[in-house]
């Protein structure tokens, strides 16, 4: 499909109604991607009418935004890509989306996703898989694959996704767009349907670093409705750096294995060369505990998920199945058995197991201890005497083929091998498109110390300027 960039600066000059009409046309033509779950002309018109009442100087005036379908809104259903929330419409809008709408953002649609954000390919949506905009046989990554595909296809300039263990950076890398995960606590989770509460972060896709930074800036900041948000001033939009002089960039050896995909390696080599060219000092560092990130993540996230998903019991909302025995246990079994897909059921089982009496110490408690060690690794590398930023591949390979990993959960989990540890450490990180290999985008991951999103985005802005994201890397 044709990618027509609507940069925020363009939409700012357009009356909202024009933007809404253009959006409808683009959403319509993007239907084959299966990237959207809910959108309607009437909702777009309502958004346009609402924006017409706002100050045109609002920071995101008439900027179209796609929302991952785990962000609750009162206008459209919120299904989390699951049958168990089919038709569910929230009675409230979350904090981040509320702030964005107040700042002028135009909610374009709800985007498809892996069910309850569990997956790395957006093949685990109950409403069908999302296709990669550049190759329909490939996956866009996940779990925020719908949002990533919509930005990559030029339908919207920016979109919200959510991260628990890389669910924005990984699809951003696959789709060749910018994907930014803020520090844990920077953006309120109120209104984000919980998966792994100690990891969940509302995160942003943008066609440019600046677009993503502007969206992130508006939605960041303390929220009295989320006890885990931090009391800091909202993140300012950084000006991109002219060069990277004075910055030290660390390359963690563990993130550049010998068997790294050659296209990915070439993309990173190109990025490292560009950073050096811009004046950055490049240094090798070590993050030894990162190798335990995936198993640690797959204990902590499912444990929290098992509890977070207990509320979908068919009692208060969502489809209810009565069950063969007619009692409450039978209702739970039937409703949850039919409502959750295989991957969600797998993680609920794992999460329940690792918290069970007799297994808690061996799994959950141990995983928390390892999580602390992983975080310490990053603190040491990015702390005093260390480097200013870390640079790694975002993913071990470019976008893979649909169906390639659906039968092998562990292979799917390993698609997140370079993004998981950062989530466990609660740090800000982003994926920047740095070129293509055989037509498929390659992403570089930039990691910053806690609450240093500004440093990360400013450096990314400098690299963005010199790296042709559409150029072949080898």
């Amino acid at each position, binding site marked *: 499909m044709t990618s027509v960039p609507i940069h925020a600066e363009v939409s700012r000059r357009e009356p909202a109604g024009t933007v809404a009409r253009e959006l409808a046309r683009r959403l319509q033509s993007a239907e084959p991607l299966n990237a959207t779950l809910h959108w309607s002309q009437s909702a777009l018109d309502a958004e346009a009418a609402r924006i017409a009442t706002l100050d045109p100087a609002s920071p995101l005036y008439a900027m179209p935004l796609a929302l991952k379908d785990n962000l609750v809104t009162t206008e459209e259903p919120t299904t989390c890509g699951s049958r168990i*929330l089919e038709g569910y419409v929230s009675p*409230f809008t979350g904090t981040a989306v509320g702030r964005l709408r107040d700042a002028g953002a135009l909610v374009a649609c709800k985007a498809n996703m892996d069910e309850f954000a569990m997956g790395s390919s957006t093949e685990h949506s109950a409403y069908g898989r999302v296709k990669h905009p550049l190759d329909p046989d490939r996956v866009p990554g996940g779990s925020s694959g719908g949002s990533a595909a919509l930005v990559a296809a030029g339908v919207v300039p920016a979109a919200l996704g959510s991260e628990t263990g890389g669910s924005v950076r990984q699809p951003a890398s696959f789709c060749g767009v910018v994907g930014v995960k803020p520090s844990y606590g920077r953006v309120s989770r109120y209104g984000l349907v919980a998966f792994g509460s100690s990891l969940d972060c509302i995160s942003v896709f943008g066609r440019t670093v600046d677009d993503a930074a502007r969206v992130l800036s508006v939605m960041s900041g303390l929220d009295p409705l989320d*006890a885990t948000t931090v009391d800091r001033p909202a993140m300012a939009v950084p000006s991109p750096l002219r060069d990277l002089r004075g910055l030290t960039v660390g390359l963690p050896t563990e993130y550049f294995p010998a068997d790294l995909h050659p296209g990915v390696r070439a993309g990173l080599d190109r990025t490292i060369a560009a950073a050096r060219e811009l004046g950055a000092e490049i240094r090798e560092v070590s993050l030894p505990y990162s190798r335990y990130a995936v198993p640690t993540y797959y204990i902590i996230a499912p444990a929290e998920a098992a509890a977070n*998903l207990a*509320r979908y019991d068919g009692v*208060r*909302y969502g489809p209810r199945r009565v069950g063969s025995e007619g009692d409450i246990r039978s209702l*739970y079994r039937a409703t949850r058995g039919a409502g959750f897909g295989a991957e969600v059921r797998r993680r609920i089982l794992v999460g*329940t197991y690792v918290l069970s009496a007799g297994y808690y110490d061996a799994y*959950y408690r141990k995983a928390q201890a390892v999580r602390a060690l992983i975080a310490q690794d990053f603190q040491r590398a990015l702390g005093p005497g260390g480097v200013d930023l870390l640079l790694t591949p975002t993913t071990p390979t470019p976008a893979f083929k649909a169906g390639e990993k659906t039968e092998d959960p562990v292979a799917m989990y390993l698609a997140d091998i370079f993004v998981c540890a950062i989530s466990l450490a609660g740090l800000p990180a982003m994926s920047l498109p740095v070129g293509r290999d055989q037509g498929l985008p390659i992403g570089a991951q930039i990691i910053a110390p806690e609450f240093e999103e500004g440093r990360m985005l400013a450096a990314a802005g400098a690299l963005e300027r010199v790296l042709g994201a559409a150029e072949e890397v080898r």
Partner: protein
Amino acid sequence: MTPWETVVGLEVHVQLGTRSKMFCGCSTAFGNPPNSNVCPVCLGLPGALPVPNAHAIRLAARAALALGCSVHGRSVFARKNYFYPDLPKGYQISQFDQPLATGGAVAFESPERGRMTVGITRLHVEEDAGKLLHDRFPGKTAVDLNRAGVPLAEIVSEPDMRSPAEAKAYLTTLRQLLVYVGASECSMEKGSLRVDANISVRRPGETKLGTKCEVKNLNSFANVERALHAERARQVGLLEAGGRVTQMTLLFNAGTGQVKPLRSKEESHDYRYFPDPDLPPLVLAPAWVKEQEHELPELPDAKRERLIASHGLAAYDAGVIASEQAIADYFEAVLQAGAEPKAAANWIINDAMTGYNESGEFRVPPVRLAELIRLVARNVVSQQAARKIFPELGNDDGSVQAVAERLELLQVSDTGALTDWVDEVLSAHPAEVARYRAGETKLIGFFVGQVMKRSQGKADPKGVQPVIVGRLG
């Protein structure tokens, strides 16, 4: 004497006296229409998050301090996972291995062993679940989530009680303390105090505890006592028949007075507690805890001792006055207005308490009761007349003396008036007059009583006797 020793420990859930819920702004008001005090947070809707209620934490800390517990600088909210239709999130937010407070003690009067203390293992904060209504719709169960998210403190005692009566006495004192510090209303009717009782039996002298069973959800102190009697009898019956007690949870049926098994230990839930990632650890500064301690009112024990020591009250009277903050406050206010302590205590216990127990307030202003006590002391009104005046003092704004005048209850010591009443009494009781004159002089008391009655308490008893003696002489 039973050859078995009973060992009891109690888990008490009290509703903390906040206006809003533990993790959202919904009202805690009792008796509203089903599902009217609810919001996305307490309904457990997707995307909603809990935020702790600072006032609930304050009240829980005060309760813990009143129970002599250490309030910890860091405690952790944990999720207690289980499925039940009254539990909207599929987990209850509670505290588990790092509770708000630990290690207290409650001193009280055991009916069997006198003054004793029961150890308090811990006090933690949690949210209540909703309520299932089985009688609203035929064949269906309805869910009312007004209670879901209401703040509770769970107070766990050591197994220090040795009888059902002792358990009841502990509960009475515990409730008194919690009401005293304003932590909870402790109203069993409104469900703001619920008890789970753990009980085991063993041979006297045995140091190891027997296998315990838990009787759940007891909703009155009388039922706690009854349930413990029933469960003790069940366990003793098993052991005396040569059997064993197996650990289980039982429910008490208040109708039949029997306990019935709910689930065995094997069937008990694995709650899979883990720290709630939505809530950072609860950190309380030492200065804040100190402040709560300073703000605690004088507690009932200390107050009772002070009333005895500095006002010379009898132990029983001091106990009644100190039993509730409002009574003690009223007493102190009456004293402040110049009344003599013992008289004030008698007035409160004998007269003022009736109205207080009915309405929950003292209708007679303290200055007016003090004034009434003064009028009695100065013989302006008799004690008997004063008791008739007292109920009027809540309605009438005039001076106490004016009320007495209006009611014609001023004491009469005028000999002429007294003589009239005496003559009426003597002519009404010729038989007694004859017996008196025959030497049965102790009948003088009878005549005085009759005169007091005829005068409706107005006659000055000290002036009446010489008049009677004179008329009969």
